[in-house]
């Protein structure tokens, strides 16, 4: 379809929507084709899932929607569903004579947009175009989030047509969208939840051992994503995995955590906050510096607690995992967060402020004593480690996808980005809220994934402010989820934090 044709199609959407129908039963296939024609869609049929995949791969933008039977001899319909979602990100509707809810559940879990029972009625097919709109809407959002024009430029008729259709439906000017996309272009790739999920799915698909950036990139099929983006993301992912593994083995190395903080602070120029409090939660998170995977990079952390410096010192100790890249103790003047109590004798008094600050940030964490911060610090540390790979020109928020995601990166990051704006309580509060939630998630394996996912989603929102690292965070989150789930026990985390009254589990 040329662009003009695409435009024409758009004008009449949903008329002309291009559907690929797959069913090994020729009777059903013919009926389906006829029904779809009756709905004025453009239909292509095949009775083999393999052929369908080939058709789709041949030209990703040739189709708007795929309808597929579940039971097919050459390939399981669910498998096809997964692959289509992964490689082409097209809406897929499942079709089956199985009315058993468990099949429906399976379909939904594998990413089906809808699940229709045979015999299919024309009324049901008349509404399937909404899935295309919905998907393109999501893509558009993702496009805004992920800089670049993941969806639009590659411009394929289908995608553009979809977007246009959507626009049309929303009566939005196409130019506006173009501008929007243009304005949203950022030089860096933000690893949103969706993007990260795609990454994860791709990694699952090839297997972690075979995960090479090129393969993953191909599978992800996201525009404006380079091999380098994927490579660095993968690296972080692997590091996170390793760290989590190590973490599980070594417990409670607060020193490491402290050093992390120091590192973090040094990075951010906040000085190192070692927080001794770390032990509270640190054990869980680390066996050492290495274990601080989950924590967002110092930067963000540091950004997060401008006031922290004073209270953090609790357990600040410079020794312990000298993860710090720089000097353990940055010049005091640089330290917003003082890892060394001595450095900021006022901290004692400030501790309360610290507590307060975090509460502002963490909304409710304030009850936690400084130790509560330690988890953050630890987390930061982790993220720090993990984002170490990433050149972080922006102090703002290292992606520390792991940690920050948990902390609701988006907000936090924004917050952190404002190195100088620590005083913004509102931001802090917002961040804290997120952080709180995030923290909770971190410690509950079950929810970690959720968190990570959600956090990365949040990140997406903050595209503009987030740096590349953020992207990693998201991705890390994903990978970590699994690891965390298996590695960390909820009790453990809870126990660790209980000491500090860490209100993660808000």
């Amino acid at each position, binding site marked *: 379809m040329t662009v003009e044709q695409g435009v024409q199609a758009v004008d009449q959407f949903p008329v002309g929507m291009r559907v690929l129908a797959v069913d*090994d*039963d*020729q*009777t*059903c296939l*013919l*009926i389906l084709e*006829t*029904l779809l024609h*009756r709905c004025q869609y453009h239909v292509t049929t095949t009775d083999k899932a393999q052929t369908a995949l080939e058709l789709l791969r041949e030209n990703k933008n040739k189709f708007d929607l795929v309808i597929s*039977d579940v*039971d097919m001899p050459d390939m399981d319909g669910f498998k096809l569903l997964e692959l289509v979602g992964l490689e082409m990100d097209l809406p897929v509707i499942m079709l*089956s*004579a*199985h009315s058993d809810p468990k099949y429906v559940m399976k379909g939904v879990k594998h990413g089906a947009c809808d699940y229709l029972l*045979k*015999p*299919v*009625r*024309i009324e049901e097919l008349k509404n399937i175009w909404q899935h295309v709109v919905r998907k393109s809407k999501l893509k558009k959002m993702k496009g805004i989030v992920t800089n670049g024009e993941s969806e639009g430029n590659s411009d394929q008729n289908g995608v553009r047509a979809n977007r246009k259709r959507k626009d049309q439906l929303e009566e939005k000017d196409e130019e506006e969208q173009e501008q929007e996309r243009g304005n949203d272009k950022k030089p860096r790739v933000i690893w949103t939840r969706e993007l990260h999920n795609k990454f994860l799915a791709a990694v699952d698909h090839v297997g972690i051992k075979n995960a090479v950036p090129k393969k993953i990139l191909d599978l992800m099929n996201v525009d404006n994503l380079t091999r380098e983006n994927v490579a660095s993301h993968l690296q972080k992912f692997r590091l996170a995995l390793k760290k989590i593994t190590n973490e599980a083995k070594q417990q409670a190395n607060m020193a490491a955590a402290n050093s992390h903080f120091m590192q973090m602070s040094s990075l951010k120029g906040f000085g190192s906050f070692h927080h001794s409090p770390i032990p509270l939660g640190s054990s869980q998170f680390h066996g050492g510096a290495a274990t601080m995977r989950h924590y967002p990079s110092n930067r963000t952390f540091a950004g997060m607690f401008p006031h922290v410096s004073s209270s953090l010192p609790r357990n600040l100790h410079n020794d312990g995992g000298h993860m710090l890249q720089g000097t353990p103790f940055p010049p005091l003047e640089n330290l917003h967060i003082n890892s060394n109590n001595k450095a900021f004798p006022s901290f004692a008094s400030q501790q309360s402020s610290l507590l307060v600050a975090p509460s502002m940030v963490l909304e409710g964490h304030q009850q936690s004593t400084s130790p509560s911060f330690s988890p953050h610090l630890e987390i930061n540390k982790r993220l720090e480690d993990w984002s170490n790979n990433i050149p972080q020109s922006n102090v703002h928020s290292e992606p520390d996808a792991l940690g920050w995601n948990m902390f609701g990166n988006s907000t936090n990051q924004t917050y952190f980005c404002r190195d100088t704006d620590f005083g913004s309580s509102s931001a802090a509060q917002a961040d804290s809220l997120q952080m709180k939630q995030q923290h909770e998630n971190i410690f509950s394996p079950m929810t970690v994934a959720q968190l990570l996912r959600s956090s990365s989603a949040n990140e997406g929102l903050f595209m503009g402010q987030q740096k590349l690292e953020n992207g990693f965070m998201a991705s890390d989150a994903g990978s970590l989820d699994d690891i965390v789930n298996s590695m960390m026990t909820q009790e453990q985390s809870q126990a660790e934090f209980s000491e500090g009254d860490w209100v993660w589990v808000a």
Partner: protein
Amino acid sequence: MDAHVAQLQMQYRNYILSLYQQGFLDDQFTELKSLQDDGSPDFVAEVLSLFFDDCVKLVGNMARALDQTGTVDFCQVGANVHQLKGSSSSVGAKRVKGLCINFKELCEAKNYEGCVRCLQQVDVEYKTLKAKLQDMFNLEKQIVQAGGIVPQVDIN
């Protein structure tokens, strides 16, 4: 001739109604009919012939699966039943579909005799339906040849 056509049409109408009343056909068949138009005048015939071809194939598969000395692969039988169920429900072959539902349960219960019996019933049923629909098409042809148009039968 008009009287003849009218008579044929009446015959046709009654015949169709009886098929529904006897449970050979259901609403899905009506849907199928509604999809037939000038653009695709033989749509129903086409679909039904595909369906009956499927029946032959699937019944054959099932017969082979059930006719094994040794262990019977009920999963295989079940898969075929499932497919037949899907296609029969899509064309509106009500009785065949009903049998498939029973058949499925028998497969799950690994009831060998039950399956064999059910398969025989399916075999009889689809052939009966095929014959009946063939009569219906013949009537349609007669009406058209007599210069009339095939009436749309309204199944209340």
